[in-house]
């Protein structure tokens, strides 16, 4: 029995996702089909991308409270500029990534709390989104629409996309040297500095990468919904944080898991569908989502205790 602690940490999120999925299939056997799965997980793709972005920020011990407004802003850009004049749209996105990198630098240099700076930025992104799209509208770029509604053989797009996202980010965060540095900054930024690395550079890179994934999330969202509005993704801020935690990530110490984060995002999306299959009245749906979150975290606590007991033996 040689299981790494990383695998154990993935066990609970994976098990809870499997359990929820089994429950959904039991109640609604028709969901067990290509189309059924696609419908169940469709909205998970943008949430998974936003969760990955949040996870990157959390890996350097920061928290991004502007995630929801930033994804909304990106969705608005994707539905307007990117569609009408792609060059301008791409330029705006490059600017947004640069802004994220700059936020990372400012937070590091001035030792500011990330919560407050991103709180301020959330107003800025929200304002920009309102300026771009004062009322809901816009059209999704044809290619984004095509990607999000593609029907690959055998496995639905939503699943393929989730696996690709998990695989790519697993490589970046867990296998590449940049990923190791990033988690190192979260774990002990002084020792990374003493080892001769530029912590500012790592933090700027992490923020830029997070910005990039959040932009992908906005584009994916527009690809699904075909139009955008300034408030389209506001709940992503809290969903993305919850997704990371559900997936076994932690607020401090650089302990994050990309595969777990994607699984966490899928679990949160599925919880919504599960509740509507349960015929729970809409009044209680949000509350039941909170309850599911609590139950999963309680399970994780139980497992952590088990892990600790094994170590001490």
């Amino acid at each position, binding site marked *: 029995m040689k299981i790494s602690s990383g695998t154990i940490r993935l066990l609970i999120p994976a098990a809870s996702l499997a359990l929820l999925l089994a429950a959904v299939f039991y109640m609604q056997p028709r969901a067990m089909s290509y189309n059924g799965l696609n419908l169940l997980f469709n909205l998970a793709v943008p949430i998974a991308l936003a969760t990955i972005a949040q996870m990157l920020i959390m890996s350097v011990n920061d928290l991004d409270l502007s995630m929801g407004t930033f994804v909304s802003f990106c969705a608005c850009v994707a539905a307007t500029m990117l569609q009408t004049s792609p060059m301008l749209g791409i330029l705006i996105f490059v600017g947004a990534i640069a802004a994220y990198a700059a936020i990372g630098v400012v937070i590091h240099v001035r030792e*500011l709390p990330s*919560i407050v700076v991103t*709180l301020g930025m959330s*107003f800025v992104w929200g304002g920009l*989104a309102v300026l771009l799209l*004062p009322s809901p509208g816009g059209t999704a770029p044809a290619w984004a629409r095509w990607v999000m509604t593609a029907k690959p053989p055998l496995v639905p797009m939503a699943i393929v996309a989730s696996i690709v996202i998990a695989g790519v980010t697993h490589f970046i965060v867990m296998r590449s040297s940049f990923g190791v540095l990033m988690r190192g900054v979260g774990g002990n930024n002084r020792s990374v500095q003493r080892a001769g690395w530029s912590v500012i550079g790592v933090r700027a890179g992490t923020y830029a990468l997070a910005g990039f994934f959040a932009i992908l999330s906005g584009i994916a969202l527009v690809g699904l919904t075909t139009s955008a509005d300034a408030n389209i993704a506001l709940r992503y801020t809290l969903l993305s944080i*919850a997704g990371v935690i559900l997936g076994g990530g932690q607020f401090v110490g650089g302990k994050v898991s990309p595969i777990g984060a994607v699984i966490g995002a899928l679990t949160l999306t599925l919880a919504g569908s599960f509740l509507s299959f349960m015929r729970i009245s809409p009044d209680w749906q*949000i*509350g039941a989502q909170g309850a599911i*979150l609590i139950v999963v975290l309680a399970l994780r606590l139980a497992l952590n205790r088990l892990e600790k007991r094994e170590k001490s033996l």
Partner: protein
Amino acid sequence: MTPHRFLLGKPWIWSFAATVIVWIITVLFTGGASSFGLSQAALTFAAFSVIVGIGQMFVITLGPGNIDLSVPATMTLSGTLALKLMDVQDGMILVGLLASIGIGLIVGLGNYVLIKLLRIPPIIATLSMSFIIQSVAIWSNRGLRIKPPEMLANFTTSDLFGIPNVALVAFLLSVLAWVLLEKSIYGRWISAIGQSMFAARMASIPVDGTRLVTYMLCAVLAALCGYLLASFSGGAALNMGSEYLLLSIAVVVIGGTAVAGGNSNIPGIWGASLFLFLVVSMLNTYGFGAGFRLILTGLIIIVVILLAGGRQSFR
């Protein structure tokens, strides 16, 4: 202690200075005609953010990671249930108030039980809790808009010697909070916990009890604010708390409370609340649209933090 602190003196002075400047700019634009009305509106709306801000400040003082995200949901639930209970009867005002406080106590207890027993980080614990509270509010509200009892509505919308009653209530609560924070052993305890939970425990401070009381205090203040806000605006709405989530954190931080915990500041909350309201009304009078208003609000928050919040002098 630090050259930084020595130079800036008291951090809350800056938020007041900024408030005065914004006030003057706004009044100048309108030719002085609006100065009284503007001040009254600012005091009224600042009062609501002060009440939730104080609660949030106590929680933030507990140290890194301590934030209460259930504030908006608690406000909504308390406003909804209290108005339902009072059912437009003046005689029930006190009962409604007690019910509000009770809701706050229960929510705070629930929050801390999750944090302590399930070891859930406070952000996620209060977030899950807020989902549940929100559901209870939706379920009990059913889209009905019940009016507040007339006496209570009159109280919250009128003023005493030109100062809005709500602002007086907020002022009273701030004084109580200041005494609690600066003069009582409880205040010393939360600062100690915020500076180092480990050291506090070694010093045999009842860490769990203090944290429990703090989360309950924050929820009670949020519930109280919901009660007043619902009465002030003539009924509870399901989204009435939503803007207070970011606002409650923003006023605490701009007001000069250290986000890393262990150091808090009540006058600053007043300065920051007035400042944020006046910025929005200044941008309104200058005729900016919603988009620009949001962008400028965000930039102003960041600039204030940049100017006042740098902690590099500690190292």
